[in-house]
């Protein structure tokens, strides 16, 4: 069995950021979001797909995303998620924080110059 990244291997809060970022492309249903994340990370960030749904509930609770039932191109009923204005602001904030953290880690590991 090949080693596989469990959902615990993601930095905390990263999944939310990835989902929000994905939603900036437009309204998507759950499966499409999962597909998008998997494809762009070349399957490296392969979280357990089910964990997407609690994350979506969390984003809606915070008011960063909304959802609506619609019909998928294949004719199935599907729930479509949309990022809200405050979701976009949140995403900007999280990206900035993420950059800071990544840069800091890179410095510790000697991969980046100290300021």
């Amino acid at each position, binding site marked *: 069995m090949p080693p596989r990244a469990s959902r615990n291997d993601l930095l905390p809060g990263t999944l939310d950021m990835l989902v929000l970022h994905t939603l900036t492309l437009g309204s998507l249903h759950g*499966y499409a979001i999962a597909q998008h994340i998997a494809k762009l990370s070349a399957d490296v960030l392969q979280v357990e797909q089910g964990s997407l749904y609690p994350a979506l509930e969390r984003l809606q609770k915070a008011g960063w995303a909304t959802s609506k039932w619609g019909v998928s191109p294949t004719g199935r009923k599907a729930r479509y998620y949309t990022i809200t204005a405050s979701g976009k602001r949140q995403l900007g904030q999280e990206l900035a924080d993420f950059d800071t953290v990544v840069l800091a880690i890179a410095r510790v590991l000697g991969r980046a110059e100290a300021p």
Partner: protein
Amino acid sequence: MSWLDGVRHRLRTLIRPNTYDAELQEEMQLHVELEAMQHGDAWAARRRFGNRTRYLEESRRQTWLPLIDAVRQDVSYALRSMRRSPGVALLVTITLALGIGANAATFTLLDELYLRAPRGIQSPETLRRVWVRHFRTGGGIPFTSQALHYPLYQTMARATGDSTQVAVYATDWSVRMGSELAAPRVRVTYASPNYFDVLGVRPARGRTFTADEGVLGKGAAVVVVSEAFWRDKFGTRGDPLGQTVLIGRTPHVVIGVLGAAFRGLDIQSGDVWVPLATYPQPEWMREPWWQSTNQYGLRTVARVPRLFDDRTFAARATTAARTLNGALDGERGDTLMTVATGSIVEARGPGAPGQELLISTRLAGGAALLLLIACANAVNLLLVRALSRRREIALRMALGVSRRQLMRLLTVEALLLAVLATAGAMLIATWGGTVLRTLLLPDVEWSHSVFDGRVATFTVTMGLVVGLVAAFVPALQASRADVSTALAHSAQGGGGRHRSRLRSGLVMVQAALAVVLLSGAALFVRSLHNVQALDIGYDADQLLFAGVRFADGAAPPAPAVASAMRDVATRLRRRAGVQAVATGAMDPMRGFTVLQFYTGRDSAGSFGPNEPTLGIVSPEFFAATGLRIVRGTGFSTAGPGAAPREIVINEAMARILWKDRSPIGECMVFVTRAAPCFTIVGVVETARRDNVIEAAMPQYYASLDQPPIPDWLGTRLVVRADGPALDAVRTDVRTLLQAAWPAGEATVTAMRENLEPEYRPWRLGATLFTTFGLVALLVAVVGIYGIVSYGVNQRRREFGVRMALGAGTGNVLQHVVWESTRTIAVGIALGAVAVVALSRQVAELVYGVSPRDPATMLGVGGLLLTVATIAALFPAWRATRVDPVETLRAD
């Protein structure tokens, strides 16, 4: 607003709690199916998705749905346990419903009288009523009133510099619509043209008065009507504008209809508004009423804060009023008067509070006490129940129920009871509020129904607070339960010294508060008794007053009425059941005359505030009314014109003017010193002049047969009947009068009916406080019974042992009863202290009895102790029936 989106999302899930799971399932199913389609491997797809149930749960936990589940569980558990012991649940619910309901009922009244501003006006907080403190009128005793005359209004309005912000109005709640006797009455407000602008009231249809329509002396016959009046009189269909309404004898054109909310500024709701300029000119007044300084009865409202602060307004208006009065003749000009402003809510103004407000505030106090008793009782009962469930609770805790969950469970239980109680309280509030309205203010037509949003909010808030209070103590106690000891002792443990102290403390509080309420009841009952026992001089139970009314403009000349009335009197004297008949110019205690007089002695200043007043009566008056002649004789019966000039004075007047000397034979002259002498022939006992409760008023009487000035005529009848025949005589009088004046309307009233409004507040106070007192007593007794009964159950073993060791029935009985009696006695002592502390608050509501009266307190204490002992006897008797063998074997 991101959090708002979030809250909306959560609420949406709450609205359809059952579809949440199904929808998420469907969504996940689609996901897995799409994944399987993509890779052609259903099993791998499911594996890659992970544990579906777990993620469903994880999502669900983030919503508010779990809370709903928990509450639903708790509620269903609470309902089950209520069904298990319905007695306690019922008692707690009824007790709390009574407590909350009594408060809500008094709130309905206080809200209307005191708390809320008249509806339909703009920014009531900047609107002021103007009050005047008079010093010289009204017999020299300073009094505060809103009544003022037009020149005073004008002067004050001018002094403010902007009279557009100062409006004036008068009310007449009984104007005939038409001239016929049977014409319906309408409640009219005479308003200055700026009245509606000052109040910020816009008509729903049409317009209000223009300045032209309100020019004094040239008032236009136009009317603005309330929505309710319009609906009642004309139905909702058709155009009201332009139609006419008879007000008095004048047809008024409807120019506007007000919105439903506005019904005037007073508790009594108004029907129609007409220009102040159409205010009817009193017949006796020579100058136009708006120039007269005798025509009180106008009220002023002003947007004071738009002009200046209240103090500046009052200062300016006071200066202006004093200047105006200084210019009047010295006798009348009150140069000490001050002007003050008050809230638009009349009862919050500086005037003396009305009896209805006094009673309702005291009632609110009583209701609060009742609620405290109810709460103490509910807490006690719930506490007892929680203790009897110790085993169950301990078991739950042993099985892993957390303390928090346990507390929530008990809180939900108590809240559920509170919800039931609140529903009951709303019924009680509606019913009780209606009763209070009709009892306290029977003549008021209320503009709005008893129960509204404010009352509902009040009741629900109160119910919530009470529920939390009732839940708190038992929940705290139960959650402190220690698993091992509770399980070991099971239901036999007494709950420990600490807890029983709390319980008897609560009983003590109940007893103390019941003493306060019962004392209030006793004081009111005694006051009523004292007031009813007052000798007012007249034999009120035997007296009828009668006269005849005519349609406007249809009255025959007064001398003709008077002479025909003498004939009616003569005929009446021959009727069965009639003891005596007199005629008079006015009914006793319904009016009097003041006439300038001189006696041989210098009377200046000796009367103080109370100038002697005059009654003009026929010679039979004293015999008919039952006023005793204590010295000298009554009037001569020689007949009109032939009778000598005679005066009869009362004892109060004799005492003031002649001190210890006899006034008989002294001379009184009227109007001018040169006028002929009227001889004082008798002194009569002092009768009440205006009110049942008043100081002795100096009064004197002149004979209709030879009056000091000829203006007075005997147009009223005073009939003395045999007590039991009063009703029959009443019919006789009416028949005779109606026969004499077929076009008129005979009016006959019993003196008792006239006096009834004076006794009403006392009767009311007695009734309401007795009700409260009895409810308090009942609740307290139920509480005592419950506690003693619980105690006996808990201590069955102890009693068994005692009896096994030789204690007799009497012994055990005494032991149990003594314990509760001791608690109650301490409570009564505390209550007595509270009564003394509160005595000032009730002093103005009692008559002829001190609020600290020891006899009342002893009586109340004795009653409570007796009833409490009886309540304790039943469970105590059960304690004596304990079978020692059985209880000992139980372990």
